[in-house]
């Protein structure tokens, strides 16, 4: 990684786009500062903290998936090890009286994730694609199972606990109240997001993209794809460790669930649902998935099934994720042809919503059949044991599907028309 082209060779941006670029980041920071003032309840502060951690984690995952094209099924290993490293560090700071205040702790979490990435990454990144996916799955299982055996380090089933308020103070903050923890997480979120965005602009970030798209060609121009993948893996491990450290601070505990397959699956879901092709994709995904997770658990016992269905839907119909769907409209907005598509969207909403309601009703009927609890769907109560409910569900699903398919075809036609106009005006390649 010595003789690389400098970033200044990239096409220069206009002053206006520079301004817009910084404005987006400043607005993001402002939102983070103002949010807890608008929603100050304990519950929403906890939710914001969780979302913040999830965003850092998902962004770190996207260094692998989106940028380098490595599909990992064991990314939570670094998250969990970061959490454990942070917990041990906090306890050590308290025991030995080291002058390290709490805001620096996530850094040690990051180091925890990084060290393991350095050790294991070299073997893992030898090959990409399906083999990498399988190996990451195996390593994930290996570490998760080992964590239950090495009790003195991982604390067995119970995990290890810590007390964040016992650390040396900084600016007189005790970090007892959730609000202060939220601001700590927000600070590290902004810092990590800037660092990770900067990483995408470095030569390493660019060559990672090249390794993702065409490793043979990268090798031909003199870089070793293995080294590039390894470096990307180390960076991803570091930032995942920071997310784990933040989680350890927020919950004051680290246990083997942090490392497990479920955590790895969730970050994959969040990143992919949000969209891997754009930097803000994983952010959207993390917000949505965490919000759904928090919101749906109180409403239904089978919230994970809805996750699965949403995920399958995204994989099949919109592999670019939500970010891809949004950015698809950019050329249309620029060309001013978005207006011709919107009416068909509005028409499609009704049958699509009916189909979705039918699916929800079907799932809930099956889920609650043995319990017999009533289903409350948008204020209408359904009895899961009455045939009328099954009938309504069947009609909604079948009729909804056929009408919705017609309306989607209409969208496709309107879209083609709008895209043709946009292409003629030079906004769409």
């Amino acid at each position, binding site marked *: 990684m010595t003789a690389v082209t400098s970033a200044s060779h990239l096409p220069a941006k206009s002053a206006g786009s520079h301004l817009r670029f910084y404005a987006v980041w400043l607005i993001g920071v402002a939102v983070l500062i103002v949010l807890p003032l608008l929603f100050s309840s304990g519950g929403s502060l906890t939710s914001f903290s969780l979302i913040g951690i999830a965003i850092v984690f998902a962004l770190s995952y996207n260094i692998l998936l989106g940028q380098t094209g490595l599909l990992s099924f064991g990314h939570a290993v670094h998250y969990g090890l970061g959490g454990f490293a942070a917990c041990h560090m906090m306890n050590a700071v308290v025991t030995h009286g080291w002058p390290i205040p709490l805001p620096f702790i996530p850094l040690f979490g990051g180091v925890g994730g990084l060290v393991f990435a350095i050790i294991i990454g070299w073997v893992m990144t030898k090959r990409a694609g*399906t083999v990498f*996916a399988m190996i990451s*799955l*195996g390593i994930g299982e*290996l570490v998760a199972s080992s964590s239950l055996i090495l*009790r003195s380090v991982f604390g067995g089933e119970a995990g290890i606990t810590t007390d964040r308020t016992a650390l040396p103070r900084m600016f007189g903050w005790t970090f007892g109240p959730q609000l202060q923890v939220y601001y700590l997480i927000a600070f590290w979120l902004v810092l990590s997001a800037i660092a990770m965005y900067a990483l995408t602009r470095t030569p390493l970030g660019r060559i990672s993209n090249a390794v993702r798209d065409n490793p043979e060609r990268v090798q031909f121009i003199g870089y070793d794809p293995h080294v590039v993948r390894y470096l990307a893996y180390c960076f991803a491990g570091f930032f995942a460790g920071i997310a784990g450290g933040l989680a350890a601070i927020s919950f004051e505990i680290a246990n083997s669930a942090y490392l497990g397959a479920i955590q790895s699956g969730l970050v994959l879901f969040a990143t992919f649902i949000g969209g891997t092709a754009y930097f803000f994709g994983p952010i959207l995904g993390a917000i949505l998935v965490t919000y759904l997770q928090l919101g749906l658990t109180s409403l239904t016992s089978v919230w994970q099934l809805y996750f699965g269905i949403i*995920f*399958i839907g995204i994989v099949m119909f919109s*592999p670019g994720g939500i970010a891809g769907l949004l950015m698809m409209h950019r050329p249309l907005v620029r060309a001013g042809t978005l207006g011709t598509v919107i009416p068909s969207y509005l028409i499609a909403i009704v049958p699509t919503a009916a189909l979705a309601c039918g699916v929800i009703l079907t799932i809930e009927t*099956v889920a609650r059949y043995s319990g017999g609890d009533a289903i409350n769907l948008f204020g209408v109560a359904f009895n899961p044991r009455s045939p009328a409910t099954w009938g309504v569900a069947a009609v909604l699903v079948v009729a909804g599907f056929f009408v919705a398919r017609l309306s989607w075809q209409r969208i496709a036609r309107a879209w083609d028309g709008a895209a043709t106009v946009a292409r003629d005006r030079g906004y769409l390649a």
Partner: protein
Amino acid sequence: MLELIVISTLNGVLFGMLLFLLSSGLTVIFSMMGVLNFAHASFYMLGAFFGFQLTKWVGFWPALLLAPLLVGAIGMAVERYGLRNTHKHGHVAELLLTFGLAFAIEEIVSMIWGKTPLDYRVPALLDFPAFTIFSTNYPAYKLFMLAVSVVIFVVLLVVLKRTRVGLIVQAALTHPHMVGHLGHNVGRVFMVVFGVGSALAGLAGVIAGPALVTQSDMAAALGPILFVVVVFGGLGSLPGAFIASLVIGLVQTFAVALNGSLASAFGPLDPSAGPSVLTDIWNVTIAQVAPIVPYLLLVLVLIVRPVGLMGTRES
């Protein structure tokens, strides 16, 4: 000691054959489409649950036939309406589709049958000890499982290597366009092979269900080991999968049966040193390590021979 070796070998071979039954379908599907089917273990789980439900309704023997057919039909539907449409987005999208599917199937199964283990019994006809070795009764059902696995293995090999159907399938794996030009419907070949692979997984589920535990996390428990088998044996290699299945089956069965630890062999460490990683490793028994042994094998094999035992394909 001899008793332990004989019984563990029998059980190890049994588990290994079961793993092979699953990994053979997975391997054939992988060599064909280049995508590892994450939902393969879920098809196995579906087989067990369908087997349980059908046994309740129509008895075990019809269930042994019907449940794999049902699972095979689901597999064909997944190929036709899922994977075929996703193929244009690349292999990662296909892998993710099956990953999401595995997740959804686990949720659906636990939604319908609950999360607790089912009371899926061995059929009365086979519920007797077949023979006695060293005062241990070896159940007849386990022999039956072994026999089914061996028969399937032989049939699979013969069909793939010796028949016209196998010829077309093998040709479609390597030269799909040529096979298409010769007038065979390659899409349908893929669909049928995917269905047969899923049905094999389903069959493994029906026969393994009564012997092992039938519950909604059985796919999640077996899935990772299945991928270890496939990577360990070499991606896309059927003989490799066979050897790896037996090795992992034997190693894991023996590890579970052994209760030794470093502490029991060399005496405990100095207790005044206090708890540390070293005392953990010193005191852990081989049986406790059993679940991670396959993954350790995987890592070791990849360091020494990255393509796996019999693999030739670089991804």
